[in-house]
């Protein structure tokens, strides 16, 4: 079951190809990071998925049922766009109630949802404010609230924490984390550490093309990479022999170990630690896998 399937999608703006034959698949229920440099096509991808930009060519499928159709899919997709303002004169409460009703909620349910989401994004005391009375952060929180109204199956979050102060950004991450599993989430951000914590799937995009995609564990090589911070240089030959490592790299004080796939990570780690202790080398820190940033940069280099 897939939430999103794109095959060879091209989106042109004049001569420029914002999406250039992009093909990707996002499984249903995944929390998917969409990673790429500025201008790589992330925002265009979200707009194409939400039916706001018709693709120039290629196939877009949501929920295995064709491209987004507001008549059929209203209420199933939530979008938090990067730059969008609520209605100019309505209060936040009135705007949210309107969006909830358009999403198919009845009057009473809309009322309840709006009140609930205003509380979740800490805007309940701003319910009667108009858009010009809001700060940038408040607008972003409003945007998050409207994206999740009515519990859509697919939510597209375009840089949800951009421009937020650290406290609100952390709260926003927590809010998104709580929605994991209840919907398919696509999140674009330049904060890769944030995505590493939130997401279980990732796609890397470069110049409108897919560079790499897959489960986060595979991309981070959580099952095959170990990094240790040591007190001194170890005997690398003995370490290689003991754990059957494919590759060892010593860059004091860090030792990077790439393990064979057939050895469970916990067993390999135990052997590694025993060997280092046998050699009298102190272990200050141990972490598995590589960072998302490292994985992303490696994928970019390979592409």
């Amino acid at each position, binding site marked *: 079951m897939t939430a999103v399937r794109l095959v060879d999608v091209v989106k042109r703006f004049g001569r420029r190809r914002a999406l250039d034959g992009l093909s990707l698949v996002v499984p249903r229920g995944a929390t998917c990071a969409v990673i790429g440099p500025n201008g790589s096509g992330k925002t265009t991808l979200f707009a194409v998925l939400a039916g706001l930009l018709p693709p120039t060519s290629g196939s877009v499928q949501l929920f295995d049922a064709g491209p987004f159709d507001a008549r059929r899919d209203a209420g199933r997709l939530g979008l938090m766009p990067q730059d969008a303002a609520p209605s100019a004169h309505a209060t936040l409460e009135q*705007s949210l109630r309107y969006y909830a009703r358009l999403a198919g909620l009845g009057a009473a349910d809309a009322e309840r949802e709006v009140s609930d989401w205003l509380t979740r994004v800490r805007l309940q005391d701003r319910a009667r404010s108009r858009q010009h009375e809001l700060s940038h952060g408040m607008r972003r929180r409003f945007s998050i609230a409207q994206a999740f109204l009515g519990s859509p199956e697919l939510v597209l979050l375009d840089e949800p924490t951009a421009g937020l102060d650290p406290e609100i950004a952390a709260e926003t991450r927590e809010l998104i984390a709580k929605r994991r599993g209840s919907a398919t989430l696509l999140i674009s951000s330049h904060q890769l550490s944030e995505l590493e914590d939130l997401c279980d799937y990732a796609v890397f995009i470069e110049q409108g093309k897919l560079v790499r995609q897959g489960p986060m564990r595979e991309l981070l090589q959580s099952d095959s990479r170990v990094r240790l911070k040591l007190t001194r240089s170890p005997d690398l030959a003995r370490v290689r022999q003991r754990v059957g490592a494919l590759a060892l790299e010593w860059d004091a004080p860090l030792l990077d170990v790439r393990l064979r796939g057939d050895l469970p990570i916990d067993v390999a780690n135990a052997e590694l630690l025993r060997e280092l202790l046998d050699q009298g080398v102190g272990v200050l820190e141990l972490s598995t896998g590589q960072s998302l940033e490292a994985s992303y940069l490696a994928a970019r280099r390979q592409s």
Partner: protein
Amino acid sequence: MSRLIDVRKLALVARFELNEALRSRLVVVVLALYGAGAALGTYLFARSLAAAEGAVRDSLSGTLSAHSVPDDLVRQHALPRVIEFFVEDPALQKELLDVEPLAIFYGFMALNLVAPLVLLTSGSAHANELATGTTRFVLTRVDRLSWALGKLVGHAALLLVGLLVGALATGVVAWSGAGIDAASAVWLGRASLRAWVYGVAYLGLFSLVALVVRSPSRARSSSVALLFLLWLGRVLCSSPLITARVPLLAHLVWVFPAQYELALWSPRWLESLGAIGALLAIGAASFALGYASFRRGDA
């Protein structure tokens, strides 16, 4: 129709749009000015009518005793002078003698002000949301046709509110002066509805501009240019000098809303119904053209 349009959502969009417009300070100020203008105009019109009646009374008093000149007779002689000021066509002047003078004044005022009124209150409604990105919150929940048409319906309702505000102001001023009877009130309502139909044609034309250019400032300036072009086009297509050389242009005159203004004044329903149908068709066709551009475009 229900397959093409989600009627429930169209109604939601229209209602929100009407409320949103009425929350706007600009719209409230424009409608207030329009109402104040209608009140002031009514006051001046009533004075002019009284002056014309005074002049008729004076001229008739030479042949009849001034006290015995009946009001009906005075008005019968005074009204044509006033109507001549509004309408040039002699046949229509005769027909308008049956219409309440107050409604003639308000109808004249509304028909002449409705295009700028629509431009000020609704001219860039579609473009505003597209430019600010508000559509990105909305178009994931409602299809484009229901949204675009819902906004049009909302602004058509706003126009009706505005015209009724003017009619009410006219009625109040008339009531506080010489009083207003039921027939005049009904005629005021009819004049408002006819001006509304006329305004809907312009609403459709301005929607076409807004859906094509998608920027509020460009939509406003293009709509002003369009008003000028419509005026110029009609002048050229009505000019015997030009139509003698290009006879086809004489038929083109029917695509201009102003061409139906006189027919809308007609108290004969058949004639005014034809004009109403043509004006609604101009509005609908213009909106359809705008929507055709927006339907497959970027939002």
